């Protein structure tokens, strides 16, 4: 914050950062909901989607939020009230925290950590606690089943996700997300420095595994057994209504944005533009837009897959994680490490 002419006190910085995180979380999530959930899926099904609220239904999201806010906040009689009320907040809060170490520009970062990617992945796995709390406190067998399935699934896919990231970390030689962006910006692809070195060139296996694991972490089709509507009503969200359901909804799409941002930062070069110096101050303005564009690309793939494939079975899901993804990522780590040391 030394580059700013005005000195902002610490509490002021904290407020600004909180507002910044809220904007960074809600803008991509809202855009994704409108562009992908409302429109793209409709086009896939040969319909137009919402068209009445605003031009081409662009205000539909506000109408939905208004609808959710009007609904009664129901809590089942047998529920563990405090835990039940707390669960969606835990889920949303962890998603917000994932955005903290993600850099949007040379100084446009909410908190710079030397172990940024570690923090992001560690924090994102806390959301399983919120989901388990929701499932257990609802006093509903569907919720409990959904919560347990979600716990098993999130734990199983946390591992391939972390291992997929390890390849990038080895190649960049740092856990700092800003450092990973800088490494992708400065390195050359076999001596050709035209577009920097986005790690998707060498870590495409890691990117594929990361996206598959992200899909499972988001509990989206084809890995949506925790909320499988034909088996479990809505899984751990069954008993939620109104504002608390809205929080789960925001959490789901904000998490999609968080994983998309992580994938863009780790594999696609992050906020950096290949021909612009990393310390250029304009990148504090352009960088967020660059990252946003990459996030939207990644989210397109995420939602494209989500709306194309049918649901897997629970045992297929677990087998896929433990017997396919984890060996692949381990092999990827070994190859990356060997190549890194040899060359």
């Amino acid at each position, binding site marked *: 914050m030394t580059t700013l002419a005005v000195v902002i006190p610490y509490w002021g910085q904290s407020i600004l950062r909180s507002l910044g995180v809220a904007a960074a979380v809600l803008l991509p999530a809202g855009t994704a909901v409108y562009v992908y959930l409302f429109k*793209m899926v*409709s*086009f*896939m*099904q*040969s*319909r*137009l989607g919402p*068209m009445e609220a605003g031009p081409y239904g662009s205000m539909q999201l506000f109408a939905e939020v208004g609808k959710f806010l009007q609904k009664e906040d129901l809590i089942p009689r047998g529920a563990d009230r405090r835990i039940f009320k707390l669960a969606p907040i835990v889920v949303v809060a962890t998603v917000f925290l994932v955005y903290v170490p993600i850099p949007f520009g040379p100084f446009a970062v909410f908190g710079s950590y030397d172990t940024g990617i570690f923090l992001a992945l560690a924090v994102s796995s806390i959301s399983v606690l919120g989901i388990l709390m929701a499932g257990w406190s609802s006093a509903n067998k569907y919720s409990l089943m959904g919560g347990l399935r979600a716990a098993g699934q999130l734990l199983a896919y946390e591992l391939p996700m972390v291992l997929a990231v390890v390849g990038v970390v080895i190649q960049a030689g740092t856990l700092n997300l800003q450092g990973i962006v800088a490494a992708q910006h400065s390195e050359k692809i076999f001596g050709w420095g035209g577009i920097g070195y986005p790690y998707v060139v060498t870590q495409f296996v890691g990117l594929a595994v990361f996206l598959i694991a992200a899909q499972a972490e988001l509990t989206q089709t084809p890995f949506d057994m925790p909320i499988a509507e034909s088996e479990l009503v809505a899984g751990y969200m069954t008993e939620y209504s109104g504002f608390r359901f809205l929080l789960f909804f925001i959490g789901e799409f904000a998490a999609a944005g968080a994983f998309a941002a992580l994938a863009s930062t780790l594999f696609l070069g992050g906020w950096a533009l290949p021909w612009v110096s990393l310390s250029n101050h304009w990148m504090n303005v352009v960088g967020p837009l660059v990252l946003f564009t990459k996030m939207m690309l990644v989210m397109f793939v995420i939602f*494209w*897959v989500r*709306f*194309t*494939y049918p649901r897997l079975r629970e045992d297929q899901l677990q087998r896929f994680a433990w017997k396919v993804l984890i060996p692949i990522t381990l092999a990827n780590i070994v190859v990356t490490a060997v190549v890194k040391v040899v060359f």
Partner: protein
Amino acid sequence: MPKVPGLLKGLGVTFAAIVQTTKPKRLGGGAATVQYPHVKEAPPTRARGVIALREENCTVCMLCARSCPDWCIYIEGHKEKAPPRRAGGKPRTVSALDRFDIDYALCMYCGICVEVCPFDALFWSPEYEYSEPHIADLLHDKSKLGLWMETVPEAPELEVGADKKKK
């Protein structure tokens, strides 16, 4: 050429659907749906929209009410003396219809009543816009059911060589 895996083919199908839906109308694109309140699709002639009643054909035989799986038809009638057909004959006894209601909140549009009616008193109409804010208003009485007769399409021409109905 190696076989394209089904997973990729599926992605291709959904992407092709996006392209097809977003393509301008003049290039043969567009959605399969219409924006209902602004644009209306004409239902097929034989669509099962609403059941119309031709009251003068009804003989209060109750076949429709008894065959209705949902018991959504309510019929009441009484017997009346009608003047004899020929001069000096005995007065005839005819059934008069007091009440003929169909509760469309219960009706499941199976059409058994239309099939079973021996006197051509019930007809299908393709009209479908009769939703109501209050569920009780979905009980259509015989005057309302009679009004639907205007929307019943003409019966199609009989095939060549078909038996004409004998009177």
